[in-house]
């Protein structure tokens, strides 16, 4: 609530009402008094329905993503931070420097205004920290019961340097697979807050913008072939997709994949595999073997990459498939999940 520039008009409405999406006075007040101060940054643009942007580069990357997470606020972040980090990271994974975001809100009638204020405050802070500007947006309100409080869509635009060519098809036999840190933190943080599930320790989401680590990585290892942030579907899905796109085999080593003990314990309890659990602040990179050490050092030197590790390699065997060497020295194929992972009965 502290973030509101002029809270008085909104205090009349402690919850979102349908009129906040109607395009009238209430809509204007919401934008003027809540969104604009939170999202606008130091030099707020007019927040009109569209904006003319000056792009310093010639190669442009664009991306869009929608965020529907429950609960809306969780240890380590909120749907607001995710909405910024998610799109920033999508841009960063193609080697782009993210510059501008758009923000589309679908609000549910009855959402406490204080919750919305917290979310957009988080969102504005995340954008400022990431050095991106939220330049235009849209708000709709749906009837009570027709949404989960807030849905946010963000689109992003970034620029890509001339010499950068990052794509899954570039994965080659002999490349190594790097992972920037522990996996499963975000997914288990969310799950630990879902109804009826309580752990002794609080698992924090790893939600973070990765583009500065990407910049450091590209400076240290200019010939990075593939980058991917393993969000929904986890590391297993990302590596499967890369293996299939490039028609190469990927082999990882179970004991090299970093997993926090509390995440591993929670996964064991529920019968989930951390390899399939979502992350929001981790990246995979596939780089030529000759640049692997430099890439690893660059990741580890970054504040988000302290636990970075080389977890595997691209191989000529089993093209299109991801295979793991287990701790006891056997092999298992890791396939894509059909849908969400479901907790086992016992």
């Amino acid at each position, binding site marked *: 609530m502290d973030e509101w520039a002029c809270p008085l008009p909104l205090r009349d409405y402690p919850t979102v009402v349908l009129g906040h999406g109607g395009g009238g006075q209430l809509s204007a007040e919401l934008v003027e008094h809540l969104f604009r101060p939170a999202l606008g940054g130091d030099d707020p643009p007019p927040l009109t329905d569209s904006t003319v942007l000056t792009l310093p580069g010639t190669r442009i990357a664009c991306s869009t993503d929608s965020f529907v997470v429950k609960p809306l606020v969780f240890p380590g972040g909120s749907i607001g931070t995710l909405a910024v980090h998610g799109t920033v990271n999508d841009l960063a994974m193609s080697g782009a420097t993210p510059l501008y975001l758009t923000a589309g809100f679908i609000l549910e009638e009855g959402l406490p205004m204080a919750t919305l204020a917290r979310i957009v405050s988080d969102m504005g802070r995340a954008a400022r920290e990431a050095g991106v500007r939220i330049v235009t947006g849209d708000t709709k309100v749906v009837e009570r019961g027709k949404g989960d409080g807030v849905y946010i869509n963000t689109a992003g635009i970034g620029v890509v340097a001339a010499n950068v060519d990052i794509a899954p098809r570039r994965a080659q036999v002999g490349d190594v697979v790097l992972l920037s840190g522990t996996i499963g933190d975000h997914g288990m943080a969310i799950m630990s807050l879902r109804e009826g599930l309580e752990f002794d320790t609080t698992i924090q989401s790893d939600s973070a913008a990765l583009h500065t680590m990407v910049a450091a990585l590209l400076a240290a290892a200019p010939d990075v072939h593939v980058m991917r942030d393993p969000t929904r579907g986890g590391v297993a899905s990302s590596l499967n997709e890369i293996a299939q796109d490039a028609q190469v085999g990927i082999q990882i080593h179970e004991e090299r994949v970093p997993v926090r003990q509390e995440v591993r314990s929670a996964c064991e309890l529920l019968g989930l595999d951390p390899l399939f659990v979502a992350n929001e602040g981790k990246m995979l990179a596939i780089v030529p073997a000759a640049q692997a050490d430099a890439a690893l050092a660059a990741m580890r030197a970054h504040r988000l990459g302290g636990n970075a590790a080389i977890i595997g390699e691209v191989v000529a065997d089993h093209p299109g498939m991801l295979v793991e060497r287990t701790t006891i020295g056997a092999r*298992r194929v890791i396939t894509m999940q059909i849908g969400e992972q479901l907790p086992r009965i016992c």
Partner: protein
Amino acid sequence: MKYLTEFRDGAIAQKLAAEIRQMTTRHWAIMEVCGGQTHSIMRNGIDQLLPSEIELIHGPGCPVCVTPLEMIDKALAIAALPNVIFCSFGDMLRVPGSDRDLFRVKSEGGDVRVVYSPLDAVQLAVQHPTKQVVFFGIGFETTAPANAMAVHLAKKQGLTNFSMLVSHVLVPPAIDAIMRSPTNRVQAFLAAGHVNSVMGFWQYPPLASQHRVPIVITGFEPLDVLEGIRRCVRQLEAGEHEVENAYERVVTFDGNRAAQALLEEVFAESDRAWRGIGVIPRSGWKLSDAYADYDAENRFDVSDIHTHESPECRSGEVLQGAIKPTDCPAFGKQCTPRTPFGATMVSSEGACAAYFNYGRVVQLERVRVRVHA
């Protein structure tokens, strides 16, 4: 926490596997009763460390797989009713009934919720007094105490809007039935440690003695399973048939007496149909007369259920160890985890789903894995 790493040590695993290879002189068929063990074997690749003479047969111990189709259809019918909150463990949602699954019912408007404990369902009943809350109580002796406690608490609190659809199955009668089958090939059992942590293993010596079959109680970590196999092979090679406890850190002879007393109060033994296998006498639990009011089958009219099992699905024979999943003509073709005919292809603990992945490894390594003698 150290239990997770201590029992996954690669060097000790290799040593155990070497011991097994050294002592094996002929083909032996060992059944791991529990789906959790199957999952561990496939997840860690334990079978790849064993000599080709050792055949691991996947038993009927996947609770999702053996829940009869009729019970799934009853669950689907109840979950589709208005004013019902239907609660289930996650992995039941994808199991196909005669014409749909719980995910489909949910997408069509049914209030189907995944819970992590039956006590959560009781809590939902407290929170929603105008709704009927139903919990799908399936599983072996492992999950039964928590389910019994849920019904016990609901009665104690006088809740009139909570009930349970009960389809519990018991391990010892299944072992007995498998050994009595004329087509049985099983020569030793890895018993399911979680079941024995509740029930102890005082019921097992008569089974081992009568059927002259070694039974070794094991846990679920790679070293637990390998040690269990080692002990089975040692007994088989020596011509012994004892009950051994290789899971002493969890299992005692008596088991959890308090849990057993609760089970005795809330449940009563009953004949029970196993999906793909048929009725095994006295192999299940239903709610006892004192708790009959909490039986969802009594509360909702689901007696007129007509099931339709895929004629192409041979999961029953798989569950009995009579065929391996890859012997089924539909395996990996019409029947995949995406388009499952039977529950064994759905559950992560199901033998067909495990083989679906495993078969791909075999194919890519171009090695022949010996499954039959």
